[in-house]
């Protein structure tokens, strides 16, 4: 697919100033909440995935940092016997775009909340959601929408039915498209087809406030997912009373983006009319055990490049800086 230039945008005065201001505001906010900055190398040591920007350094194939979470996880697993609980980061990552309008070089600010295995993760999830709720204000966004989801709402029923590989991918892809009819098509002839299709209908039936959780009652997996529902319910009860006036909270039961990575609650930040989410994150408890560390973790990343684009195309969404 042809990709629109610029792949590697140069930031001129206004955008450069905005980036500096936003980075500084967000890192200040994170620091005030106990997050300490780590700066992993621009050339990570992790095995290089597809989509990374690769080149030869002499005989050696290397890649530019493609993802902060992965780079930080490698660094933390190598250098820390016990996990620092709160870590923040800021800088650029380089990835071949999935969407033609995205740049290869992207600026991000984010944070990770890391805990030893066995510690209760519920409070950490709420802490991150509260922090994300403060981000629109720090960026000068006039209004925003926070979506709460949970990857386990899809992952656990698929695992319970023994669905894996291409078939599971087809179901997840159909859910990502919010196409319940495609879920039925994908599962045609499978013994769990009716159950999983009914589950998909339940997940896709609502995209609204806290009442959306009730839609889970219609799922054949309502009992299996009771813990996840209770967790989301507790999070909502904790977040709603402190919701800033210009932030809307929605429950998105069918959030499957990054399902191969996320294991629990997910967070997405949108602005009204924005074409892409402005921040995203969630719980990913399988990453550190895969690196030999029995730690659990969650975090989110604010996509500053998308915000810079939005500030140019939709300046009406932002307060004018003082």
């Amino acid at each position: 697919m042809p990709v629109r230039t610029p792949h590697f945008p140069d930031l001129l005065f206004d955008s450069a100033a905005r980036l500096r201001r936003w980075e500084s505001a967000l890192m200040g906010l994170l620091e005030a909440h106990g997050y300490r900055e780590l700066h992993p190398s621009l050339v990570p040591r992790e095995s290089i995935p597809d989509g990374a920007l690769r080149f030869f350094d002499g005989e050696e194939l290397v890649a530019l940092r493609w993802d902060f979470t992965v780079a930080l996880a490698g660094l933390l697993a190598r250098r820390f016997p016990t996990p620092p609980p709160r870590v923040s980061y800021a800088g650029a990552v380089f990835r071949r775009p999935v969407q033609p309008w995205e740049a290869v070089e992207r600026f991000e600010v984010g944070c990770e909340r890391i805990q030893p295995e066995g510690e209760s993760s519920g409070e950490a999830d709420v802490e991150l959601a509260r922090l994300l709720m403060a981000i629109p204000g720090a960026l000068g966004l006039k209004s925003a929408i926070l979506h709460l989801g949970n990857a386990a709402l899809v992952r656990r029923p698929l695992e319970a039915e023994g669905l894996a590989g291409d078939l599971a991918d087809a179901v997840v892809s159909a859910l990502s498209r919010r196409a319940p009819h495609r879920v039925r098509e994908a599962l045609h002839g499978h013994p769990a087809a009716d159950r999983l299709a009914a589950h998909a209908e339940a997940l896709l039936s609502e995209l609204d406030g806290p009442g959306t959780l009730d839609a889970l009652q219609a799922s054949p997996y309502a009992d299996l997912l009771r813990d996840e529902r209770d967790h989301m319910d507790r999070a909502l009860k904790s977040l709603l009373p402190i919701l800033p006036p210009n932030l809307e909270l929605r429950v998105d039961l069918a959030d499957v983006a990054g399902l191969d990575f996320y294991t629990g609650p997910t967070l997405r930040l949108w602005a009204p009319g924005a074409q892409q989410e402005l921040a995203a994150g969630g719980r990913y408890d399988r990453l550190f055990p895969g690196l030999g560390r029995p730690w659990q973790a969650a975090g989110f990343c604010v996509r500053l490049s998308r915000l810079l684009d939005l500030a140019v195309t939709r300046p009406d969404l932002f307060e004018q800086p003082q």
Partner: protein
Amino acid sequence: MTPQTLLIAFPKGRLGDELVPRLASTPLALDADALKSRVLRIPTATPGVAALLLKGADLPRYVAAGVASLGIVGSDTLDEMDMDLLELADLGFGACRLSLCALAGVTLETLRAKPHLRLATKFPKATEAWLTREGLTAELVPLSSSAELAPLLGLADAIVDLVQTGGTLKAHGLVETLVLGRSSARLVAARGAYLSEPGRIRPLADLLIAALR
């Protein structure tokens, strides 16, 4: 039209011909005078909502980029294009089959036995998927229209094309050898518009579903 005008992408051609009469007398009825003109951006009966008339192959791109918030397009087109958009409903109309078609008398076995099979098609992705499932290899001849001529004139051994009534095939002495899949009109939405403004987009999507299903 204001900058906040919400755009719905409608297909030109076969699907569009079925669509426009179904929308008459609904809040999304297209302005009759504008339809008779050559303009491609048509006001609807609902202020603040306009329709774009687009070629089916271009339509998903407009929706995926968020230019149009909603659109209607055949699932055959969606399956050929790997676009990031939401597919909210199967509207059911415009149903047709994606079929392997050859000259009368040419069987599937004849085609399988060919050492160098040539298939002409507008649907290379679906054709490749079928060939992979069958363990076959073939030379794909990409065409954008009038694929029925290809077997007649020796450009290909067979075609993979959409069949609705079979009238065009019959007129060219072709028969359906195998049905590879089915297609129908789908209601699609821009991911960003739908997720960031569901209160604005969902009522219109529901309206389209009610009018068109």
